[in-house]
């Protein structure tokens, strides 16, 4: 009997095979069938999930390659479940964002499976397998179906992240040789006493940090991101920013922070500084972009910077924080993970809509859209306001909690990070002014307003933004027990 989690991982793979082997028609509807199946599994997980328990649930454990300690070990806690749900939510919308031929659709499904695997695997070998498995489809999708400069961007994306992965792999081999296990939970338990002796610990730390920092990305390892996101087709950009970018943050929470608490404490201010640099410089760079997609890409870096700020404040700060602050920061980070997934994907979707209509996506290629396409402008503004953290929409909840938590532990860094909140608003206000206001540009006269098929994406996503912004408890319920558990682990 296959467990729910395994089913979740396998279904998209079967889908990919079917798409690849089956008739070339109806690609999208077939993809949706498989999306619906995996979404059903994800919902089943959510429904059966015991929100009060901190331990991993739905654990499936099988011997795989005992000689190297590799096990097939999957299970979920609140954080994993959150990301599984996010994946199930974003991927169908990515399929709706554009027509894909069956090759691309199959690759998307492979990527989806890899993502489910990454978020549920609890053994390093398995985790790493899925982690890398997501890289290949992403690379191919950019390389084959991307826009301008796709070769360069894809290569850069691949080489850069692959380089990081190798560093991480080497570090983990070192850890394995010393400790003899790849099991996340066991390793986390050993983390406080030090996994590796002496200088080796720093090498191990550096390897894993590099791998994850590239993935998130954290400043200054972020330069592959704007190129990749800019070039990728809309649907792929949505998945990249909505889910793939969370793999790095997830890796930090699962691997680096529990495994190397001492190293992180020693490097504390530096790590916090990197997070703040991500926040501030990325928002400033976003302000300076003239390409909408690049702008959204930079804001993605900025938003993940808030996650890193929260995580580093909890683990890297010398100040012993009150429970409430640790809980706030961690809850905020998890909330931000989910909200950024929704909002950033939505923003890429809207940029895609504009690009479809105009053929270009420069900020100055449009003008006066409010007169021609008020619905598109209205709904798009909601996503923008959500992204800039307007209270009442989803983005604010996570950001408020992150700032609340990190203020207690790293007040000065938090104070500087607030600049990011301001500059994000400037970037969006500038974009809104350029796109929506003024006289209607000649080139936009024939734009259709939101089509029915587009409303299918826009309405549910926007509703979700409102619901989470006003009554977020149902999201918190998913990970509250995990937050308490992790706060204990990190303290």
């Amino acid at each position, binding site marked *: 009997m296959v467990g729910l989690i395994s089913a979740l991982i396998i279904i998209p793979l079967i889908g990919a095979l079917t798409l690849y082997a089956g008739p070339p028609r109806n690609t999208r509807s077939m993809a949706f069938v498989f999306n619906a199946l995996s979404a059903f599994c994800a919902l089943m997980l959510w429904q059966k999930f015991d929100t009060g328990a901190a331990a991993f649930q739905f654990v499936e454990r099988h011997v795989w390659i005992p000689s190297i300690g590799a096990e097939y070990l999957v299970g979920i806690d609140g954080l994993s479940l959150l990301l599984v749900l996010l994946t199930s939510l974003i991927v169908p919308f990515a399929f709706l964002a554009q027509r894909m031929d069956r090759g691309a659709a199959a690759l998307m499904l492979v990527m989806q499976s890899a993502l489910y695997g990454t978020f549920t695997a609890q053994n390093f070998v398995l985790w790493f397998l899925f982690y890398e498995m997501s890289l290949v489809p992403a690379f191919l999708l950019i390389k084959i179906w991307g826009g301008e400069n796709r070769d360069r961007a894809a290569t850069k994306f691949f080489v850069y992240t692959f380089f990081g992965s190798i560093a991480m792999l080497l570090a983990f081999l070192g850890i394995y040789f010393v400790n003899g296990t790849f099991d996340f939970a066991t390793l986390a338990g050993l983390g406080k006493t030090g996994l590796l002796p002496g200088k080796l610990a720093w090498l191990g730390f550096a390897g894993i940090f590099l791998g994850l920092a590239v993935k998130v990305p954290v400043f200054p390892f972020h330069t592959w991101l704007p190129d990749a996101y800019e070039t990728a087709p809309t649907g792929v950009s949505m998945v990249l920013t909505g889910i793939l970018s969370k793999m790095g943050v997830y890796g930090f929470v699962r691997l680096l922070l529990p495994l190397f608490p001492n190293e992180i404490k020693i490097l504390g201010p530096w790590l916090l500084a990197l997070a703040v640099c991500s926040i501030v410089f990325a928002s400033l760079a976003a302000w300076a972009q003239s390409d909408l997609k690049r702008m959204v890409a930079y804001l993605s870096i900025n938003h993940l910077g808030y996650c890193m700020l929260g995580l580093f404040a909890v683990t890297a700060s010398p100040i012993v924080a009150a429970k409430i602050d640790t809980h706030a920061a961690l809850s905020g980070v998890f909330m931000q993970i989910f909200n950024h997934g929704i909002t950033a994907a939505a923003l890429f979707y809207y940029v895609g809509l504009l690009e479809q209509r105009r053929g270009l996506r420069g900020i100055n290629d449009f003008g006066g859209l409010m007169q021609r396409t008020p619905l598109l402008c209205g709904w798009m503004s909601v996503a923008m306001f959500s992204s800039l953290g*307007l209270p009442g929409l989803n983005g604010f909840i996570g950001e408020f909690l992150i700032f609340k938590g990190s*203020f207690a532990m790293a007040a000065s860094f938090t104070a500087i990070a607030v600049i990011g909140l301001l500059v994000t608003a400037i970037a969006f206000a500038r974009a809104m002014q350029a796109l929506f206001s003024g006289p209607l540009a000649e080139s936009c006269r024939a734009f259709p307003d939101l089509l029915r098929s587009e409303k299918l994406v826009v309405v549910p996503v926007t509703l979700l933004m409102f619901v989470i912004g006003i009554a977020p408890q149902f999201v918190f319920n998913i990970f509250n027990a995990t937050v308490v558990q992790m706060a204990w682990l990190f303290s």
Partner: protein
Amino acid sequence: MNWLVNNLWLIPAVPLAISLVILSLANSRRKSAAGLAVAGQIVALALSIFAFSQTLQTSEFRAVQNFTWFTFGKNALRIGWVLDPVAAAMLMMIALVGLCIFVFSIGYMADDKNFTRFFAYLSFFSGAMLGVVIANSLLLLFVFWELVGLASYLLIGFWIERPSAAAAAKKAFITTRIGDMGFFLGMLWLYHSSGTLLFYDSGNGCLERAGLAMLGGSATFIALLIFCGAVGKSGQFPLHVWLPDAMEGPTPVSALIHAATMVAAGVFLVARVYPLFSLGAINGVTASLTVVVWIGVTTALMAALIAIAQADIKRILAYSTVSQLGLMMVSLGVGGVAAGIMHLLAHGFFKALLFLGAGSVIHGCHHEQDIRKMGGLRRLMPVTFLTYAVGMMALSGMPLFFSGGWTKEEILYATAHWPKSHVPYYLVLAGVILTALYMTRQIIYVFFGNPRVASERAHESPRVMTMPLIVLAICAIFFSVVLTPAWPWLHSYLTGEATRFDIAHLIQPMLLVSFVMVAIGIGLGILMYRRAGLEDRHRSAETDPLEYAQPALFRFLENRMWIDELYAQTVIAFSRTAAHLSDWMDRYVWDGLVRAFGGLGQLFGIFTTDFGERGINAGVDKTTTGTRGLGRIMSGWHSGQIQTYLGVVAIGMLALLLLYAWLV
């Protein structure tokens, strides 16, 4: 506890819900949109009156209802509603002024093609503003505060096809957000120090003794950070620059948001969290309150000076608003909290009246806003003239019959008794003179003399527009009944003291001072401007008398002391450069490093290949031939065809699955 206290949230919720309903209406459903919006406002007003009547039951009435918004980890984040005299008075003012303005808008916006959207935005604003005043948590207040800012942004940029309106909206949004970031930090700090953001929580709130005791020395910083938010919203120096530009919005918007209600939210905020400001006060003076006083004085005087040299009827009123808000801040700073709030309420009525009057004038003059092109409207628009004159008197602070007079007198009294310094008092006196002066100038230009270009074919506005004017004018006069020192009902209501009727208190020394100042202002105004707009031996009709007398000073004031230009050259230029620098660094420095690293790798590759060619290859040529064959096959796999790639991926996956199944 009664029904309304438990359901206080209905007051903001009704207009907010109605705004969503209106948004979903078709553009052509004008009547339903206006009807719904007005109905929502009437409901809000009725509920407000009901709430107000509750607060009359006991002195120092305060009802609180707190609840958990959400639980994170094991901690509950609680927010809530509060009903107390300040909140109730604000509710009444906002709902009543709002209602007048909603009705006025039906006439004023009649020709607009986005009529329904306008009422949706207005309702949204009204709901958010009502939420600000009854929030019992700094967080909830911040939430509504930001929503109010959003409404302001949407309404300033309502005529979005005008680039100037869009630019003004952006400027307002960003400038206020600068202040809000301070507010945000202050809120974080407060939450950190006191452990709660609830104002009142049966003794444990952050404004109550236990909460305040935990703050200690940080209270000053927290208060000042929160004050940043108030500076932004209430257009205080140095963040005042957005407010005059906000006049790009439709005039009812200027009246509702940028005169009567939203801009007063900053003053309200300071009054709401006043215990944070006054914590540890000696003689009523603290460092944070001193800052409030000086910011207020600077703003009040500066804006009043600038108002003298403006030609746009709405801009004059905008600067006047900035100036009056400064005055309210001064009042709060010197300890006159009740006086500040009273002035806020009175100002809400008469400034809305003035703005709507200006709207009526603009409407009558076919959308001309330059006062130098008007004139003689006294006869052409009699209702507008009379109500405008009432507003002018109230704003100038004419004692006895007009609300503004009593509240100004109270502020002067409080300022005169500030122990720290007498300078603010004299500066405020100067401000009173200047206020009367610029209002006299405006009245003379607009309503007296002979009609000029724009006012020749002016007409009185329809009843739907004049009725709100009359209502507001009556409010501006009758509001003074509860303000007189003889029966200081409102003061007692706000402070919780008992009210006694005592006619002797009507004679106050400050009343005389105030009267003299206003008289000087009006007299000076008449003297200076009585021949304004007329040809003269020395100057043309367009030249302002002050411009003629003091051209350099006039230019300085007309150009708003070049503060906008200064910002453009410094702060804005700097941050723009920072943005472009960040982009540049990304493209060339950080990415350059990566590329250099890649280049090094390539170099290494070339070196090793070279080494391999010479050192190793020679001996293993035979092997190579074999490998080459294999290579040819393998390069065939790199067909570039996605199907092939996919096939490989799929087969690999399948193999893994089989392996898994076999192992299990």
